[in-house]
C-alpha cells in the first residue's frame, strides 16, 4: 500500500523537475501552514513531506501520475478554509496546492458561464463576475476559499434558499485522474443526458476521486435590488416558527438566517461594529432580491406582515450597500469571533419543517449537560450550525470552564444531536463535508449498502488509494 514515511530524495528531485525547484517546499517552517485547515484541532493536523505547487493541468497530471506510480499519498489543497480536516495530509505524502492555478480563463457573456482554474478565490471570482454585470449566487462564507475546494466540498452558504448550492452552478469540470489522464466531464451545457453524470461524482468528493483543475460555472443576470431585513423576536421559537409560514407565502428569499442575540453581541464587540437592533433575544436575517424597487417593497411588506403577526418586535431594513455589508459582515464573522472558544461546529441538515424541533432538542441537550450550545444557521434550508463551546455564558459574560469538564461532555453532546438528526431523517453535513472529523458518524446516517457503493466508486477511480486517503471513510473498515 502507501509508502507512509519519508519520500526519498529522488522523488523530491523529480517533483522539482516537474513544477520547478522553487515550487516544491520542504522547509518545515513554511510547510506548517499546510498542515491544518481553518478550524481543525491540533490533534488532527499533520505535516506534509513536501508541498508541491503546479502551475498547469499538465504539471498536475505529471505529479499525480508519479504519485500513482510511486504509491505515495497526495492531498489536494485549495484555500484551506474547510472545517473538517479535508485538506490535511493525514496519510502523509505530499500536499498538492492549487494556489498558482488562479486564472479566470473567461467570462462568456453569451452563454452566461465562466471558466475558472481551481485556485481562483471566491473573492476574485465575485469581483470579475460583477464587473461583467453578472451574478454568481452561492455565497459559502469565507471568500478566500478556492473555487476548486468549494466544488470539491459542494459548499452551500446562506443564499442556498433561493439559489441552491454549488452543485447547481457547476456545468463542466477538468479533472486529473490518478492515472494522470485528464478528463472533461460536462461543458458549457444547460442539459446533458449522455451517460452517467461523472461530473457530479467529483462535486463533493473532497479530493478523493480526482484533482479538479478547472470548472465551467453557470452565472445569472444580476438582480437589480437587494435588501436585508433584520427582525428581532423575544423568543427563538417564534423566530423559527415564522420560517415555514414565510416559505409557503410564495416568497423565496435569498437567505433566511436565525441568530441568537448573545452571539451577535460577542461579534459586535469583536468587530467594533453595530447591529441594527438591540431588541429581543433572537434575530431573523432575511435577504431579499427583486428586479424593481416596487417589487422589493411588495416583498418586504409581505415578509414584515408575516413576521409581525408571529410576534416579531420590529423590522429593520438595510438597503444601502454599506449597511447590507455591515449586517452581513457581522453575520459572517460570528465564526471568527467565537472560534477561539469553540470546540466543534456541527453542520447538521434536517428537513426544513423539522428545524424548530431540532433546535428545541439542542436547547434540551445544552440544559442537560450544562454547556453553552449557541445554534444558528440557515433556517430556511434546514442547515443548523450548533457550536459546542468550551465556555459558559452567564448573564452575557463568558466564563471558561476546565477541560476535564467539557472533554467528556463533548462526545455525548455530539452523539445526542446526531441521533436527533437521524431521527429527523437528516444528514450530518449540509455543506462542510465529512473530511476526517465527521468520518466516525457516516454510518449513522448512510446505509451500509450506500457506503459500500461509495467505496466501490473510490476503488474504480483510485485503485491505489493515493488521493486524499482516509477522508470521508476508511477503505479497509
Amino acid at each position, binding site marked *: 500500500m502507501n509508502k507512509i514515511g519519508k519520500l526519498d530524495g529522488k522523488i523530491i528531485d523529480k517533483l522539482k523537475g516537474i513544477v520547478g525547484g522553487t515550487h516544491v517546499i520542504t*522547509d518545515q517552517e*513554511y510547510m506548517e501552514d499546510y498542515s491544518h485547515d481553518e478550524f481543525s484541532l491540533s490533534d488532527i493536523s499533520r505535516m506534509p513531506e513536501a508541498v508541491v505547487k503546479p502551475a498547469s493541468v499538465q504539471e498536475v497530471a505529471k505529479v499525480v501520475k508519479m504519485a500513482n506510480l510511486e504509491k505515495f499519498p497526495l492531498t489536494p489543497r485549495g484555500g484551506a478554509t474547510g472545517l473538517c480536516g479535508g485538506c490535511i495530509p493525514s496519510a502523509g505524502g505530499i500536499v498538492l496546492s492549487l494556489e498558482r492555478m488562479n486564472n479566470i480563463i473567461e467570462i462568456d457573456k453569451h452563454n452566461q458561464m465562466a471558466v475558472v482554474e481551481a485556485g481562483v478565490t471566491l473573492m476574485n471570482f465575485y469581483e470579475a463576475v460583477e464587473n461583467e454585470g453578472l451574478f454568481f449566487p452561492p455565497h459559502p462564507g469565507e471568500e478566500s476559499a478556492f473555487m476548486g475546494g468549494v466544488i470539491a466540498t459542494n459548499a452551500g452558504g446562506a443564499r442556498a434558499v433561493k439559489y441552491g448550492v454549488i452543485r447547481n452552478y457547476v456545468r463542466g469540470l477538468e479533472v486529473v485522474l490518478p492515472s494522470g489522464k485528464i478528463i472533461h466531464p460536462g461543458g458549457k451545457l444547460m442539459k446533458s443526458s449522455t451517460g452517467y453524470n461523472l461530473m457530479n461524482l467529483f462535486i463533493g468528493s473532497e479530493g478523493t476521486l480526482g484533482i479538479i483543475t478547472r470548472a465551467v460555472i453557470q452565472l445569472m443576470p444580476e438582480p437589480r435590488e437587494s435588501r436585508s*431585513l433584520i427582525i428581532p423576536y423575544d423568543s427563538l421559537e417564534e423566530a423559527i416558527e415564522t420560517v415555514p409560514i414565510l416559505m409557503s407565502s410564495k416568497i423565496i428569499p435569498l437567505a433566511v438566517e436565525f441568530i441568537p442575540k448573545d452571539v451577535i453581541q460577542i461579534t459586535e464587540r469583536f468587530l467594533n461594529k*453595530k447591529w*441594527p437592533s438591540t431588541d429581543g433575544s433572537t434575530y431573523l436575517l432575511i435577504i431579499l432580491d427583486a428586479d424593481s424597487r416596487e417589487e422589493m417593497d411588495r416583498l418586504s411588506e409581505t415578509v*414584515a406582515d408575516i413576521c409581525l403577526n408571529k410576534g416579531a418586535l*420590529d*423590522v429593520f431594513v438595510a*438597503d444601502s*450597500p454599506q449597511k447590507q455589508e455591515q449586517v452581513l459582515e457581522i453575520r459572517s464573522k460570528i465564526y471568527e469571533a467565537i472560534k477561539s472558544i469553540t470546540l466543534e461546529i456541527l453542520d447538521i441538515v434536517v428537513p426544513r419543517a423539522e428545524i424548530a424541533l431540532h433546535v428545541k432538542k439542542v436547547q434540551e441537550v445544552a440544559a442537560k449537560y450544562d454547556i453553552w450550545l449557541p445554534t444558528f444557521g440557515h433556517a430556511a434550508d434546514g442547515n443548523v450550525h450548533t457550536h459546542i463551546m468550551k465556555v459558559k455564558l452567564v448573564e452575557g459574560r463568558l466564563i471558561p470552564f476546565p477541560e476535564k469538564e467539557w472533554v467528556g461532555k463533548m462526545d455525548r453532546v455530539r452523539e445526542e444531536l446526531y441521533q436527533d438528526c437521524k431521527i429527523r431523517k437528516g444528514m450530518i453535513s449540509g455543506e462542510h463535508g465529512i473530511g476526517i472529523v465527521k468520518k466516525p458518524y457516516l454510518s449513522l446516517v448512510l446505509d451500509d449498502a450506500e457506503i459500500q457503493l461509495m467505496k466501490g466508486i473510490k476503488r474504480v477511480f483510485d485503485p491505489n488509494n493515493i488521493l486524499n486517503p482516509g477522508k470521508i471513510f476508511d477503505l479497509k473498515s
Partner: protein
Amino acid sequence: MNIFVFVKRVPDTESKIRIDHKANKIIKDGLNFVLSPYDEYAVEEALRLREAHGGKVTVFSVGADEVNIILKKCLAMGADEAVLLKDDTPETYDGLRTAKIIAKVLKDKFMDYDLLLFGRLSIGADNGQVQTMVAQLLDLPQINVVTKLEIEGNQGTAYREIEGASEKVAFSLPAVLSAQKGLNEPRYETLKGIMMAKRKEIPVLPLEDLGMSAEELAPLMEVVNLESPPPRKAGTVFEGEAEAAAKKLAQFLHEEAKVI
C-alpha cells in the same frame, strides 16, 4: 427646536464610475445613488436632538425629481417633513450656486429655524463648500466637521477633531453645522417607517418660484475635463524559498525603494 437638514443624492461609493468623455459627464446608467453618508450623520443627529429636546426635523434637497428617493429615506428614518427644491439643471458642481438657492429659500420661504445641519461634504463632488457659503450668505455662526454636539437652550457646544487634539467651540443658535463621521451611528430604517414615508407627500418648491435672476443662477464654474484616476500598479511579489525571497526584498528596499 426647529432643525433643517440639507442632503444630497450621490453615487454610492461602491459604484464604478464611468465617464462619458464626449459629454464630459459621468454615465448615470447602472449607477446606484444613495443619500450622501455625511448627510446621513446630519439627519441622525437632527433626529436625536429632536428626541432629546422636542421640535421638528425638516429635510431639504436641491435637485430634480429623482432626489425624492433620498428624501423618502430621510422620512423613513424619522424626519417630520421633506421639501424638494426642484432644480432640473444638470449637476454644475458649483457650490456657490447651490448655497445661493438655499440661502434664498431660508430668507424668503422657510425662515423659522434654530439649526441648519449639513454633511461636511457630499461624496462624489467632495467640495464641502455649501454649508460655509450658506452661513456666510445668512451671516450665521458656523462650525464644520463636528464629531460631537451638545445643545442647551439657545446655546450649543460642538467638538471637532483637529491635529492631535479636540477643539471645543461654543456658539449660539441659530447656527450652521456640518457633520463628520463619528458624530453618531445612523439608525436603520424600519419597514414601518419606509411604508409611512412612501405615503407621505413631499412638497415641491420649484426654482422658478424663488424669483432668482438668470445671472444669479448661472454657474460660475465650468467642468473642463473628467478623468478617472490611473489604475494602481500591481504589487511586486518576491517568489522562492523564504531566505532567497527575503534577500531579494532587502535588495529591493535598499536599491530601488531606497528606504533602507
